């Protein structure tokens, strides 16, 4: 019998979901939609009487103080009446097969009360004023449901059972590649979502020709997963012949000879003092922390899934990178997360959206909610992040999630032993995310949402939390030899990687399933979330299973790492597929690519300041989405859980923005971890080298400003690019790789891990029938992981006390191209902000020396919005005024007029500068630390709550701090 329990707020005034829905519906044009009611519904199936169901409703579903409920058999009329005047009933429920965490935990709750086991599925219900069916559907799909994961049902539900799925009977399917010409091979790749090139399919065909048999479907899929761009970075590891501004360069392996090579050079130069532990090898990069801990870090992208289902995409993006950390070495404890989103401007007109594209505001709200609900439930503080806006991200938003972990020293040495059991632990396997790895390697189109629905995963944070508790305890007891997460490619990638040399036998029918009906291939490549694969010695299996049971985690031995050098897949004892490990990992044909890059010639700056004052311009700049406060996001994230918080994302009496954020590595110990990110997306189309260099400098400046040791900074790269198949587009990627190399070497900051997401191009046909394409701007996200010996020495940007003097460190040049001043319309064109790596290294050393000596009372790096925005943010954070003497700033080349020279000084975005506040008594000592770097005193902290701008000609403009704070608090891209 299928029952339904609808739970309502006792007081309709508490129905905040209805309130938000009405506001959004009216904004969308449903002017009559002035009231609504909502309920959380539960479909409960089991041998239950009405009394049983009412007992469950009272004990499990409804709060006796704040809620009421209606319980009845599904379809009963009483379930569709809520309030007079609201005849339209909309049900939104997770599609069959889509993970329903709320339903699963409700089932657990019901099992405590009894009397009999039940199945539970959650449903959201909405009652609205009379609407035509088409209008109701449009409203539902615009505001309430996501096509990728939900069903929308208008009126009474007509469901009689929650059971689904039928047993799958084994059939071996093979594909005869010999009978296909190149066109046929291309079609095969496209139709099956394999994302393999013709050259790669030729290699597969030749391999199986040698074996004298056609490949089974499961074998072809395994190869496609392993050879996907997502899993093996085939573009970045290609041989490339490059012609660029710095001349001709030949690479046999682009990534190895740029990013990796830089790390090797830095490590070699450090010699015995090398503090890298494991780089570009494991699921995250590992470096030394203190005497008995190492720290690891990884940043991933989850762009394609987030474009289709923002909430689930972002949540599972975070879930995936958490498992990367958990799956590093013998398991690391996740201690902090970061998230960075790149989306189209919030004011993008709704009628300009290509079909299938989600409006950036809804998208941003969705990804923020996804990170919030997953990160907060995991109990990992989300401490750092950024949001960047650009029209190029309309069809391909970028979602970066990163996690830092701590592990005991020596915990990074993991090695699978022959004879170890293949153990899968955590969530069960369903049809989630089939083809995620190959899907993320191809272009999105307006039809992606319907074509790739199976590729969207929904996270279940509590499964991941219990999995984490289990892995860390099993690691403490040393009950496994190696571990990795089931991410893109599912078991095929996880077992394939762990058994890359030894090989493995896997009995796919032993994998626990969420529901019946998955084929062997689906089991093997499913990207169902919250699973890890462990290599466990048979002698340790019993103890491991005990730990799993104690934590309520399902762990199942599904095979053995054999030593045969082959991956052998079986279904109920019968052979389903056999793959040679050597072919799988070395058989991919390498490509040689041509690449060119010509730097566009800089245009002279064209000013449009017509009578505007610097202060007025500053107000506008502070309100720009890239610059403005992200408080509406930060306040939804728990950034203090685990009790380690030292420098928060919003800080000081005025809750201003931090640079690097800081946590203690281990409770009760002084050593700290500092996180910073850098993103110069607006420079991507202008100069990809300087875009990448600027991002790296920004990330490092962020952590150095907070007090991190400049000699102990690890970097991560995340390349997100548009089309890279043409030589001139590949050239932009090569230039960015070159920048990574040059900066890492010059700053002695090694890259320890990275990831790329290429071909972020959105294709659609517009209303006029024209084929259109939209590509993202070349975007490198740089992440810096810094360390500080004692968190008590942390430095924050908020101004502290009246009378402190303000200094700038680093020269300012007339560089405004791609700046926020350009975004606000003050100027167009001009020079691209250029990194001077040697000068930046010297500036970092000088600032760090002054911090070490305790001379720096506040420190902020200069980035988006230039010097004026930086000083304004310091004043807002400190809740105290400041004077900024623009004429005293060193290095600004004279512009064509004194007026413009003020604008240049205030808003130029020359990278690598710091603003420091210094106690007047320490001025001489500070000056001594600045020997050899361009710097100057440029102001002071004032008692009056104003920002006082002194122009080059001595004119004074005062802007009330409250006005600047109000401008900066414009919620960036949000609904606040």
């Amino acid at each position, binding site marked *: 019998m299928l029952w339904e329990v609808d739970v309502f707020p006792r007081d309709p005034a*508490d129905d*905040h*979901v209805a*309130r*938000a829905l009405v506001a959004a519906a009216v904004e969308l044009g449903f002017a009559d939609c002035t009231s609504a009611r909502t309920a959380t519904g539960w479909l409960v199936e089991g041998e239950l009487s009405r009394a049983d169901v009412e007992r469950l409703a009272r*004990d*499990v*579903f409804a*709060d*006796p*103080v*704040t809620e009421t409920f209606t319980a009845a058999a599904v379809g009963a009329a009483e379930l569709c009446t809520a309030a007079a005047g609201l005849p339209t009933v909309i049900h939104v429920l997770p599609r069959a097969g889509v993970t329903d*965490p*709320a339903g699963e*935990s*409700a089932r*657990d*709750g019901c099992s*405590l*009360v009894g009397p009999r086991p039940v199945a539970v599925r*959650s449903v959201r219900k909405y009652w609205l004023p009379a609407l035509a069916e088409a209008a109701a559907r449009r409203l539902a799909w615009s505001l309430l449901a996501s096509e990728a994961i939900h069903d929308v049902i208008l009126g009474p539900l007509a469901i009689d059972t929650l059971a689904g799925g039928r047993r799958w009977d084994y059939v071996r399917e093979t594909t005869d590649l010999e009978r296909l010409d190149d066109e046929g091979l291309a079609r095969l790749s496209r139709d099956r979502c394999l994302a393999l090139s013709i050259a790669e399919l030729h290699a597969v065909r030749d391999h199986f020709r040698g074996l004298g048999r056609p490949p089974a479907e499961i074998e072809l899929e395994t190869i496609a997963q392993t050879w996907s761009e997502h899993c093996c970075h085939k573009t970045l590891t290609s041989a490339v012949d490059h012609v660029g501004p710095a001349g001709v360069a030949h690479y046999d392996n682009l990534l190895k000879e740029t990013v990796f090579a830089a790390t090797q050079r830095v490590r070699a130069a450090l010699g015995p003092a090398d503090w890298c532990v494991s780089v570009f090898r494991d699921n995250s990069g590992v470096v030394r922390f203190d005497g008995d801990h190492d720290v690891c870090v990884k940043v991933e992208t989850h762009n394609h899934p987030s474009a289709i289902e923002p909430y689930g995409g972002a949540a599972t993006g975070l879930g995936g990178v958490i498992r990367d950390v958990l799956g590093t070495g013998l398991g690391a404890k996740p201690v902090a997360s970061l998230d960075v989103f790149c989306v189209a401007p919030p004011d993008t007109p709704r009628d300009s959206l290509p079909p299938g594209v989600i409006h950036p505001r809804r998208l941003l709200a969705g990804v923020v909610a996804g990170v919030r609900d997953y990160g*907060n*439930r*995991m*109990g990992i503080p989300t401490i750092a992040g950024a949001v960047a806006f650009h029209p190029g991200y309309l069809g391909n938003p970028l979602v970066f999630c990163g996690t830092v972990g701590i592990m005991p020293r020596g915990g990074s040495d993991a090695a699978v032993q022959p004879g170890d059991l293949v153990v899968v632990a955590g969530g069960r396997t369903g049809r989630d995310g089939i083809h995620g790895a190959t899907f993320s390697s191809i272009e999105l189109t307006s039809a992606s949402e319907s074509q790739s629905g199976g590729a969207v995963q929904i996270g279940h944070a*509590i499964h991941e*939390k*219990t999995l984490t*508790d289990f892995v860390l305890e099993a690691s403490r007891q040393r009950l496994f030899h190696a571990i990795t997460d089931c991410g893109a490619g599912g078991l095929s990638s996880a077992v394939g990687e762990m058994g890359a040399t030894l090989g493995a036998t896997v009995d796919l029918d032993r994998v626990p399933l969420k529901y019946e009906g998955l084929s062997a291939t689906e089991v093997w490549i499913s990207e169902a979330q919250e699973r890890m694969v462990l290599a466990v010695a048979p002698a340790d299996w019993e103890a491991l299973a005990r730990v799993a049971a*104690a*934590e*309520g985690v399902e762990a199942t031995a599904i095979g053995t790492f054999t030593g045969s050098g082959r991956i052998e897949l079986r279904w109920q004892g019968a052979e389903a597929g056999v793959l040679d490990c050597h072919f799988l990992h070395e058989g991919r044909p390498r490509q040689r690519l041509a690449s060119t890059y010509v730097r566009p010639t800089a245009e002279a700056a064209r000013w449009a300041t017509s009578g505007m004052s610097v202060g007025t311009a500053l107000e506008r700049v502070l309100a720009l989405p890239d610059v403005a406060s992200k408080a509406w996001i930060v*306040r*939804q*994230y*728990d*950034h*203090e*859980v*685990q*009790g380690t*918080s*030292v*420098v*928060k994302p919003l*800080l*000081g009496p005025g809750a201003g923005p931090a640079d690097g954020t800081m946590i*203690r590595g281990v*409770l*009760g110990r002084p050593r700290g971890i500092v996180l910073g990110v850098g993103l110069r997306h607006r420079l991507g189309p202008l100069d990809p080298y300087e875009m990448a260099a600027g991002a790296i400098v920004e990330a490092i400046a962020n952590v150095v400003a907070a007090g991190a040791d400049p000699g102990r900074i690890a970097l991560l790269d995340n390349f997100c690019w548009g089309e890279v198949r043409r030589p001139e587009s590949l050239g932009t990627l090569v230039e960015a790789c070159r920048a990574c190399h040059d900066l890492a070497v010059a700053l002695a900051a090694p890259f320890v891990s990275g990831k790329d997401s290429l071909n972020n191009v959105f294709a659609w046909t517009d209303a006029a029938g024209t084929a259109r394409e939209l590509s993202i701007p070349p975007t490198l996200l740089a992440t810096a992981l810094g360390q500080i010996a004692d*968190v*008590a020495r*942390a*430095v*924050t940007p*908020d101004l*502290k*006390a009246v009378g402190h003097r303000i200094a700038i460190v680093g020269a300012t040049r007339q560089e405004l191209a791609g700046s926020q001043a350009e975004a606000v319309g003050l100027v167009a064109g001009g020079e691209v902000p250029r990194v001077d790596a040697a000068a930046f290294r010297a500036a970092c050393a000088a600032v760090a020396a002054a911090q070490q000596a305790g001379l720096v*009372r*506040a420190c902020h790096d200069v980035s988006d919005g230039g010097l004026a925005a930086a000083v304004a943010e310091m004043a807002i954070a400190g809740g105290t005024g400041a004077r900024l003497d623009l004429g005293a700033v060193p290095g600004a080349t004279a512009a064509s007029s004194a007026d413009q020279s003020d604008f240049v000084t205030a808003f130029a975005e020359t990278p690598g500068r710091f603003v420091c506040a210094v106690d007047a008594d320490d001025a001489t000592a500070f000056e001594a630390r600045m020997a050899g770097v361009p710097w100057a005193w440029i102001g002071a902290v004032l008692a009056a709550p104003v920002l006082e701008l002194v122009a080059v000609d001595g004119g004074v403009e005062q802007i009330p701090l409250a006005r600047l704070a109000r401008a900066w608090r414009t919620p960036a891209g949000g609904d606040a």
Partner: protein
Amino acid sequence: MLAPRILILRAPGTNCDHETAHAFERAGGIARRVHVRAFAATPALADDCQILCIPGGFSYGDDIASGRIFALELKTRLADALARFRDRGGLVLGICNGFQVLVQTGLLLADPVTAAPLAALAHNASGRFVSRWVTLRAEPANCVFLQGLGEFELPVAHGEGRFVARSAAEFAALDAAGRLVLRYAADAGGSTNPNGATGDVAGACDPTGRIFGLMPHPERFIEATQHPAWSGRLDPAAAGAGLAIFVNAVRAVA
């Protein structure tokens, strides 16, 4: 004198257990983290403990309502063990999710006749999770945990923290009985009530003052460096205001 022992009771989704144990140890206790499964299998685990603490987190995902299933589990499997612990004078502290659990079990604010909860922690008035610092005012009465505390700051991080009583009369009765011992107070910018709680209630205790629950996180302010404006203003080696709550508890049973 032996250091008091604290049982930190965790469930799937509990995530503040380590730092809460750390805070109790800073206060001079010996804390032990115990999974609710293990406690249900061996209720005697609490026998040598003087304090039981349910820390923050999202027990069982909090998908139906915060703390619902954990509370249900305590009521159905551990009601006797908890009643024994209380009756022999043990202290019970619930923080955030732990407060939500205590309220729903009826251990903290129950109708004396029916044992049904007299109050609930409902969705924040804003409808969303909020993470920020608040100013609090303690009105300790007989609450063991808040003795000596006046006005102080702590962080909150919750989506369901709005204290509501079953009726206005019952709120007034709890108020008059000195049970609503912790309130959100104003700072320079006005009220810091983050969730719309009735009467600005942030925490409450049972009639004995030995069972106490609060929405803010005292374990997140046991040292000065956890404050959002500490740098340049507070001595980094100083204690945070939240430590006193743990010290009070440990001293009361030492």
